[in-house]
């Protein structure tokens, strides 16, 4: 099981023929980044609702944190203006830091929860913050079945060869 999931990137590339479920943005709060928490029907058989909602709510919290306008962001803005934005050559903006945190969170969720259930979440930043895409992996089933059919074939081959040998000896 572990070897099948050790490289999620590979899985992602190879899952291009799989189905995708998209979670659209929720604009009811204005232009701030939020995703809809409505549970899509296509995922009903794949993942439990509380886990899904938990992930999406957590993502929304992180995005709200990135876009929060408070003392820290104002300070950063003023400092940047004072240094003619050259300060960003040396340091990351708060937004970028939170985006990295989100990337790590999604990776962790994929490894622990979603990949074992045959799903892969794509980071929204890779899709222009339009959607959270859930890839339904079909190929893993194919993998397992392939191996099984191969095992069966090998077993049959061996049996047939043995039978032949037995026949030939009899003759």
């Amino acid at each position, binding site marked *: 099981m572990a070897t099948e999931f050790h490289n999620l990137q590979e899985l992602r590339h190879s899952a291009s*023929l799989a189905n995708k479920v998209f979670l659209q*943005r929720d604009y009811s709060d*204005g232009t701030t980044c939020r995703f809809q928490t409505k549970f899509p029907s296509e995922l009903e058989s794949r993942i439990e609702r509380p886990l899904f909602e938990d992930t999406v709510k957590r993502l929304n919290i992180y995005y709200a944190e990135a876009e*929060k*306008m408070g003392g820290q962001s104002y300070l950063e*803005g*003023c400092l940047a203006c004072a240094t003619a934005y050259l300060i960003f050559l040396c340091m990351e903006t708060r937004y970028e830091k939170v985006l990295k945190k989100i990337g790590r969170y999604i990776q962790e969720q994929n490894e622990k929860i979603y990949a074992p259930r045959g799903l892969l979440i794509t980071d929204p930043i890779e899709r222009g913050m339009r*959607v959270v895409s859930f890839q339904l992996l079909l*190929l893993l089933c*194919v993998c397992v079945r392939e191996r099984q059919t191969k095992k069966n074939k090998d077993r049959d081959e061996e049996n047939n060869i043995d039978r032949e040998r037995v026949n030939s000896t009899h003759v």
Partner: protein
Amino acid sequence: MLQLGVAEPMRECEYSQISTRSSTPMETPYKKRTPKKRKWQAFPGRNKFYCNGRIMMARQTGVFYLTLVLILITSGLFFTFDCPFLSVQLTPAIPVIGGVLFVFVLGTLFRTSFSDPGVLPRATPDEAADLERQIDVANGSSSGYRPPPRTKEVVINGQTVKLKYCFTCKIFRPPRASHCSLCDNCVERFDHHCPWVGNCVGKRNYRFFYMFILSLSFLTIFIFAFVITHVILRSHRQGFLNTLKDTPASVLEVVVCFFSVWSIVGLSGFHTYLISSNQTTNEDIKGSWSSKRGKDNYNPYSHGNIFTNCCAALCGPLPPSLIDRRGFVQSDTPQPTPPTNGITMYGSTQSQSHMAAATPLMQSEPVILTDEASLPGRTSLGGPCSGALPLGGQPTPPTSTPNLSCDNGMLPTRNDHSEAHHHMDGVHHHFLTPEEAPSPPGMLPCGSPLGHSHTIQGFYNPASQDSLHEDSVRGLVKLSSV
């Protein structure tokens, strides 16, 4: 022997299946042959990129160079001819302050012109197909050629806002986003397309734009005031005519500054008002949140007080660019293909099945041909930035100028659907969507359907498309058989 014979074709099938998983046989040689491209090279919008994707500008940059030349020449003349006299007669602080202002103006100008205004990347074919499916389900799949009106309503802070579907980018535009017809991109919090800075002004560069016009106002007033002072001081000693003979450059500076002051200061004042009420130029011109539209009409994005609105616009968090210009194109992830001959079409290196899903959408798509000849003349006159710099100075407030370079502004909402139907029913006669058309249909760069079909053939490479299609179909068949 029999067993081996049976095993071989099975192994062949298995081998093909495995190759479908990692990469199709057609793809691997394809990948090896082509070097890795950066995303800006495959960017579907009408933008120019410099310094290997670090700099991003609109296609028409002539007016930007004019802006730059005017600022450089005026400031250069000031520092060369007026500053020596003034620093001696009055105080050396004058060239210092002038220098600081000048550097700040150039810095903000470059920042505005060269950065990504907040372009929304176009939808991948999967997303487009998914949206298309949702729209069909929502409206009841309509047979026949009339597509349903593509709008979504959302309630933001008690106000109903209509989200429009962008036919070029194949997304529902977020609130406050707009499609710039000049750059052919959807831009977040679209303010306007400014030909003077050679770029759109949107979410990511609005603060730089504001600081540019503000600092330019100060610089203009500064130069104007001190050149006048210089001329007056000299005239006391030498007389006016002699002064003019000694420093002819001052006359030029005064003329340039005089005309600039009205327009730039006016523009700064206008944008100060916009920032304090948290509106975009687009919204102000359309009167989206004006009380004239209705008693209950108010701006749902305003934070309530002027101070918070200003802080949010100028010091708020700066979101990163969504288009990742310098990243490398992954051949696995479906990318909208770059326009050749100005056609915007979608393609992907694999999964032609998705192409099949998206094709019905594409057939009804407007095709945009590059027709630059018809546009430039309008852009330099239009837009709320008009009258900014000395072109005879148009100090009229932007509300009175026709907003030609900005889209989505001039057509009233109730006409949108009828326009959409009108355009869609025609056989690809129009080349800009109703949302994008800033002017009456007569102005659109139209071409014949013949031209349209020719360019499509020019774009497609039938041989490679067929083999890729075949391969993926084979792969799908194998998968389904297991």
